[in-house]
């Protein structure tokens, strides 16, 4: 810490930051554009000028760029100095000379950093009377809108897109006043992180395209903190609502998890909550059609069905912990399934037990960014956990930083650090059967089939610690790679190991765990992470239950209750029929119409994540609460409320209705020790700050007496819920000290954009003032760990057959996000990639789960002969696990008459 003086006020400042950060942390209103808390400083915009004085006697001082000047002990600066103020006023006036009169028709208006900074500098009259330069826009695809006239050339977009996220297709064109930020031609932005441009760009150049189609001003929307449910990473989000519709998803800062950025699947994958595929009333399926019935009638009907036999329940890794628990209680632990089929069920359990028993701590994403050595073993993280891959991309930065330390350049001095780091070698190793987006960031990207990747992993463990079992029969190249990676990991202070379930290989998980144990035995503090398939996979594994395969033996003549789970994605046609057909009746509780719901006798509509509160456990073992933003019309209600109603209707007294979510959470915590800490995931519904509950709307929300006047001119009381700590209206408290888990939007006086976040942090990039988000349920056992010796045989191609591997995709292979239009538009059509050469335009015929499919084939020279990949769930609805298949390749000429089955 250093003492600095800002306008005569002595403040404590961190000594490793720049003056701009120090000023912001001291609560000063100092305008800036090009500096970004995660991207550092480049000094491009000249907006953050302050006066710095050499010493107490110096009265003239000199103007410096705060973002380019390090904090030094005893520094004396002035933000209020008239000359500095005038300088800043002139800078913003220049920036505005070419800025169009667009605010009323700009999606950024009302939450625009440029508006805020213009007001902050006091520039209110435009003196420039000449022509403004204009630009043509580009169509950047389904996610991001482009309006280049508004650009102030701060360079943040390209610094994020290229330098931080590694994108290639956004650049700077032309020169001086004319600089243009865009692609070489119109076309969809390729990076799966393009949505962050919306928040990174301080103006309205890049805005949210799906949001623009259902636009509302920031001040008009209710906000609620939420958790992304599109993968197991558990990124924190804010969701916005107006008039009963979810309008958009924004990033919510969690210093250990997603920090400043989201992936595009998370940002644009929410649309299914408004889609016509939603279930909005209870229903009977008559002739394959969902026919609405009154909720009470459906419950009575359920009561009759349930009276005649046993109940069997199938939970879901995409449903909340609360709903799963309620179902488990209703049917009894012995009749409850986690909703996962084999091998996923056993693999998730294995992953969790390896994590809990091993010596390595589960890495947070922030720790991943800082890892000084890392190995990704047999998982395409960029597709299965996109945000995590963005964190892993920053690993090269640790090498840059080392170079910067040697040159005594501070880490926030971005351009210099990158130049110094040019020749450094990234300490990242990637082993994967297919090309991954992370290859370009790695020192070494090794192609290996899952079995071979696992063998390599075992071999690495042995080379790190000789007591780990060795692998016989490695090729020379493999042995060399193993030694090199072992050395790389041993050279690191905190080596990071990442693997996952994409290739459904237990050996991969065990090999990773072996490396962790070996590193621990050598005195390192390894970090580990397993990518899991779904938002609550971890929660379900901790809760326990039977696999779908096991429960299938118990469904005969029972009433089968399926909670928010589409079994047709997990079981192939025959298995699905066997399971559903054997049950006396099928009752489905879900928020959307799925092929499973269409087979039910009774369906109950459950609330989506935007309409109720609940808890999810991320792959990091972090229990996090999502809060409702929409107050849905009856009969929509949380799954656990339906289950309580169903118990009443069936006269089952062992499930008594819970009055509030907190009662249910308390019960789970009391009855299941592994969940003992979930009440801490977020404050309870009776939380108050300064004597009142928190509000979820801004003070300037408009149209209160008009918004539903077309229905009735009479005012009705605002909606409320006993489950959520946020008040549904603008009444209540809101402060920068509120808990990070309860933040409905970021806004402080003078700062209307998300840049106001810095006021909510203890220090920029540090913890939230109101405390942490979420609570870790499991962690490393410590000690030195044990070694598994389940070393698989090497992969051997088979004559006449092809190994079909699942090709996970950011857009397309996830269930719920594909029901959101922008994601469906972005998803590329399914193709089968075949190792070796395939004629252009050829198609393949293959049989998956007893069905025949004909799909376009693409040759992929990076795959060995006898191997092909296919996106899971996109060709066959249920297929997702590697399998030997026979591929019949039809040459283009023979294509006539074959129709696509996709």
């Amino acid at each position, binding site marked *: 810490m250093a003492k600095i003086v800002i306008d005569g006020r002595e403040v404590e400042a961190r000594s490793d930051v720049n003056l701009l950060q120090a000023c912001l942390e001291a609560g000063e209103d100092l305008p800036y554009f090009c500096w970004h808390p995660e991207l550092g400083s480049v000094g491009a915009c000249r907006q953050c000028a302050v006066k710095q004085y050499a010493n107490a006697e110096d009265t003239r001082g000199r103007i410096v760029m705060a973002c380019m000047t390090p904090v030094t002990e005893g520094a004396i600066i002035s933000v209020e100095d008239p000359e500095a103020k005038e300088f800043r006023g002139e800078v913003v006036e220049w920036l505005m000379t070419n800025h169009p009169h667009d605010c009323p028709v700009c999606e950024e208006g009302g939450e625009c950093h440029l508006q805020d900074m213009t007001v902050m500098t006091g520039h209110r009259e435009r003196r420039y009377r000449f022509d403004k*330069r204009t*630009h043509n826009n580009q169509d950047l695809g389904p996610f991001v809108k482009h309006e280049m006239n508004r650009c102030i050339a701060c360079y943040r977009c390209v610094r994020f897109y290229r330098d931080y996220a590694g994108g290639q297709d956004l650049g700077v064109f032309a020169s*001086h006043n*004319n600089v243009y930020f865009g692609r070489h031609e119109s076309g969809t932005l390729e990076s799966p992180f393009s949505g962050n441009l919306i928040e990174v760009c301080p103006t309205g150049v890049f805005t949210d395209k799906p949001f623009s189609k259902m636009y509302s001003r920031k001040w008009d929307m209710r906000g609620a903190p939420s958790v992304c449910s599109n993968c197991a990473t558990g990124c924190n989000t804010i969701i916005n609502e107006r008039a009963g519709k979810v309008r958009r998803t924004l990033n919510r800062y969690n210093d250990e998890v997603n920090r400043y950025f989201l992936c595009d699947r998370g940002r644009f994958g929410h649309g299914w909550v408004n889609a016509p595929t939603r279930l909005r009333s209870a229903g009977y399926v008559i002739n394959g059609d969902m026919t609405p019935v009154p909720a009470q009638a459906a419950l009575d009907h359920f009561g009759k069905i349930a009276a005649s036999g046993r109940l069997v329940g199938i939970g879901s890794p995409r449903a909340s912990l609360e709903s799963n628990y309620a179902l488990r209680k209703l049917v009894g632990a012995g009749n409850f399934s986690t909703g996962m089929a084999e091998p996923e069920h056993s693999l998730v359990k294995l992953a969790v037990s390896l994590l809990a028993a091993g010596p390595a701590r589960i890495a947070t994403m922030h720790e991943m960014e800082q890892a000084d050595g890392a190995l990704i073993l047999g998982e395409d993280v960029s597709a299965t956990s996109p945000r995590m891959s963005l964190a892993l991309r920053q690993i090269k930065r640790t090498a840059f930083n080392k170079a910067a330390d040697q040159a005594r350049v501070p880490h926030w001095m971005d351009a210099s650090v990158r130049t110094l780091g040019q020749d450094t070698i990234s300490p990242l190793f990637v082993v994967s059967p297919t090309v991954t987006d992370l290859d370009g960031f790695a020192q070494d990207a090794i192609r290996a089939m899952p079995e071979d990747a696992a063998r390599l992993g075992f071999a690495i463990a042995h080379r790190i610690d000789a007591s780990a079992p060795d692998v016989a029969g490695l090729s020379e190249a493999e042995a060399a790679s193993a030694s090199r990676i072992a050395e790389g990991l041993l050279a690191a202070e905190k080596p990071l190991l990442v693997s996952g379930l994409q290739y459904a290989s237990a050996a991969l998980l065990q090999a990773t765990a072996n490396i962790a144990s070996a590193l621990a035995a050598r005195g390192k503090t390894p970090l580990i992470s397993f990518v899991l398939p779904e938002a609550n996979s971890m929660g379900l594994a901790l809760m326990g239950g039977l696999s779908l395969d096991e429960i299938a033996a118990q469904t005969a003549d029972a009433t089968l209750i399926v909670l928010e789970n589409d079994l047709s994605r997990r079981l192939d046609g025959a298995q699905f029929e066997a399971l559903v057909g054997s049950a006396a009746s099928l009752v489905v509780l879900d928020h959307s119409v799925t092929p499973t719901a269409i087979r039910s006798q009774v369906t109950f509509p459950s609330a989506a994540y935007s309409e109720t509160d609940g808890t999810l456990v991320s792959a990091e073992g972090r229990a996090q609460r999502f809060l409702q933003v929409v107050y849905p019309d009856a009969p929509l209600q949380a799954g656990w409320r339906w289950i309580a109603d169903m118990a009443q209707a069936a006269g089952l007294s062992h499930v008594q209705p819970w009055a509030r979510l907190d009662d249910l959470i308390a019960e789970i915590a009391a009855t299941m020790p592994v969940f003992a800490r979930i009440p801490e995931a977020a404050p309870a519904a009776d939380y108050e700050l300064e004597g009142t509950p928190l509000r979820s709307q801004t003070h300037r929300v408009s*149209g209160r007496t*008009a918004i539903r006047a077309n229905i009735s*001119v009479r005012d009705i009381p605002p909606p409320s819920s006993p489950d959520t700590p946020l008040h549904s209206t603008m009444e209540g408290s809101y402060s920068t000290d509120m808990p990070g888990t309860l933040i409905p939007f970021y806004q402080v006086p003078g700062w209307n954009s998300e840049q106001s976040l810095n006021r909510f942090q203890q220090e920029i990039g540090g913890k939230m003032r109101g405390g942490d988000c979420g609570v870790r349920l499991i962690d490393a056992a410590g000690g030195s760990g044990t070694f598994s010796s389940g070393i698989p045989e090497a992969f051997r191609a088979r004559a006449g057959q092809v190994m079909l591997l699942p090709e996970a995709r950011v857009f397309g292979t996830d269930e719920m996000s594909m029901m959101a239009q922008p994601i469906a538009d972005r998803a590329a059509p399914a193709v089968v990639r075949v190792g070796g050469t395939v004629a252009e335009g050829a198609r393949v015929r293959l049989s998956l789960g007893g069905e025949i499919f004909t799909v376009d084939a693409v040759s992929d020279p990076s795959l060995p002969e006898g191997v092909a990949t296919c996106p899971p769930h996109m060709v066959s609805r249920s297929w997702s696990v590697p399998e030997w298949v026979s591929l019949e390749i039809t040459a283009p000429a023979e294509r006539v008459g074959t129709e696509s089955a996709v």
Partner: protein
Amino acid sequence: MLGIIRTIWMTFLHMFHRNETVQYPDVKPYLSPRYRGRIVLTRDPGGEERCVACNLCAAACPVDCISLQKGEREGRWYPEFFQINFSRCIFCGFCEEACPTYAIQLTPDFEMSEYVRQNLVYEKEDLLISGPGKVHDYSFYNVSGLKIPGKNKGEAENEAKPVDIHALMP
């Protein structure tokens, strides 16, 4: 006592003053054009809807009686619906002041009584008139940078032609 007599005297004198009462509705009072009565949505000189659905009027309204939804047609923003609940409106005129496009204007018409309160909720078709109202020649899109049908980039007031990004000349 004196006071009472004085009051009676003054009342008596009023009998000889000019009559102030207007025989409304047979005789209409004069209202100046800037009188703040019934609200209308106007059109620009080209006959297009002026309102760009910026929501500023709604935000300015102290009783929150305006509600609208932005829509977009070939680059033009417009309100998909525009609702004013006149049973709440206090005719303060803030909406008119806030409007950057002169779309929303108050008019000298106050005869809006209804037997049913619900009928005081006006929709866009009730509000939108066919002329420009009090401001005759302002068109917002002529000063803003958006491209709309009939107006390309660089064709608004004080705009240079779009930059050729492949040109390298300074």
